[in-house]
């Protein structure tokens, strides 16, 4: 369905645009406290209201989008950058000790949910947005390694790969020249999904204080602030919540749309 792709890309574009605009302009300074204006519900001046310190929520959402997108994007980059070569390598050497080592290593990393990795990192180095990136990034590595290996393995069975081997091409060259281009679609779709999961994970980590630290604004921390206020100022919780939902929904719709557009038979993992 083209509709999914359209709605998803539009939603995603809105958030990316908001994040970019926030570098040069926001309706108010997101960091300036203005206690007399606190806890305003959405109105003409403050389109999405203000928080308990009187900060403009729309401005905070815009700047917070930067954090979310940056963390999730870099984490996807780490996952792809390391996971895809590992997956290609494992598939090229299927059944060897190298393959076994890579796959068992993957299983091991899967036993450490990103939150647990974040806890470990924070316990040693203290909290921060970089920790969130590393934690989510590490968790992304086995995801990409697995799907790449799975898709690559079935490609290695195909006769055109055999033909390339008969033409004397090395496994490395075949991996880059024949395997990689044929798994790109899958990686694009899975990348969108991991991106959306990264947004969710970043929000969760920031919420419990393991992610972005003040003064860096983030959607997760806005929700943590909102928690004690939820009965008197529900908009403080609703607005960042909807921002997360819409951004993730957009990415997921885009992922589904891309899959249908590129190749409906792609097997992606969502967990």
């Amino acid at each position, binding site marked *: 369905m083209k509709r999914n792709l359209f709605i998803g890309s539009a939603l995603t574009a809105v958030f990316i645009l908001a994040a970019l605009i926030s570098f040069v302009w926001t309706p108010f300074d997101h960091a300036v406290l203005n206690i007399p204006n606190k806890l305003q519900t959405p109105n003409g001046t403050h389109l999405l209201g203000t928080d308990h310190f009187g900060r403009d929520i729309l401005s905070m959402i815009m700047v917070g989008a930067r954090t979310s997108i940056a963390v999730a994007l870099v984490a996807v980059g780490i996952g792809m950058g390391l996971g895809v070569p590992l997956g290609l390598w494992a598939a090229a050497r299927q059944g060897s000790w190298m393959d076994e080592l890579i796959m068992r290593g993957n299983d091991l990393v899967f036993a450490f949910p990103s939150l647990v990795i974040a806890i470990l990192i924070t316990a040693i180095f203290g909290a921060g947005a970089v920790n969130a990136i590393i934690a989510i990034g590490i968790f992304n590595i086995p995801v990409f390694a697995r799907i790449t290996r799975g898709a690559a393995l079935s490609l290695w069975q195909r006769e055109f790969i055999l033909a390339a081997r008969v033409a004397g091409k090395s496994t490395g060259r075949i991996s880059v020249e024949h395997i990689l281009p044929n798994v790109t679609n899958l990686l694009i779709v899975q990348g969108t999904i991991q991106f959306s999961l990264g947004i969710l994970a970043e929000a969760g980590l920031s919420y419990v204080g393991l992610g972005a630290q003040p003064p860096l604004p983030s959607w997760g921390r806005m929700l943590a602030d909102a928690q004690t206020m939820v009965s008197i100022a529900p908009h403080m919780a609703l607005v960042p919540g909807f921002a997360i939902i819409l951004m993730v929904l957009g990415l997921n719709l885009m992922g589904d749309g891309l899959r249908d557009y590129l190749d409906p038979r792609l097997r992606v993992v969502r*967990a």
Partner: protein
Amino acid sequence: MLRYTLKRLLSLLISLAVASLVIFVVIEVAPGDPASFMLGMNAQPETLAALRSELGLDVPKVQRYFAWVSGMLSGDFGTSYTYRTPVIDMISGRLWVSLPLALYALVLSSLIAFPAGIFAASRRGQAGDISVMGATQLGVAVPNFWFAMILVLVFAINLRWFAAGGFIGWNNGFWVGLHALTLPAIALALPQAAILARVMRSSLLDVLGEDFMRTARAKGLSERQALWRHGLRNALIPVLTIIGLQFSFLLAGSIIIEQVFYLPGLGRLVFQSISARDLIVVESIVMLLVFSVIMVNFLVDLAYAVVDPRLRSRT
């Protein structure tokens, strides 16, 4: 079957050994000396040495690793740096909140996801399918801790059906405890149920396209009979994988959800310990979490063999 089980058991033990080594190296070796952490920059060398020997830090690291592991095997997780009480006592009470919460959520998630996925698959492309899939698309996008806050707002603060938070333990009866964990479990379960339902649906649709489903229809089974007798069990294989994966997310998620509901579980303990730099507690909790994930994956592997006879006879 025995061979398969033994092989899985072996891989379980190796995973545990490697995981414990990773955790030990990261927490005890990498950051340097826990004793100087605890006493701060200006500690007297004598006090430091005394603390180091009290904590058992003056022995070689390899020896300390084996002491740690063998301690855990006999139920001794060491002594908290901050509270000077056995870690096992601090953890065990908390475990009785986090683990039941994760399991409760897993059950809820499966109870919602299975019927939803089967319903959608059997009505592929029809209105029922489209609305279920739309709902799951939304469910996947909702952060569980935000959903938890909304649940508190609606069901605790406005409707007053549940308490807004806290947990008084299981001593007042099973149902009282379960009631207190219901909102957190729903918050945890719904987003995961959305994922599981999608997997269930696509897995079933894959199976519906298999040749043996056509064979079943040629025998005279109706579409529904073929789905239940032949489709479901085959579709379960990928679903089991996801259930295993989800357990780790639920366990990790429960740490976050505990913050929303002020539940006295492992989550609150781990955050307290991080801020107090009580690394031995952090280490034990992380090990425990990783242990349960590896354990669940082992059980999933066994479940595979029950579902799929090909695994039983092979390897």
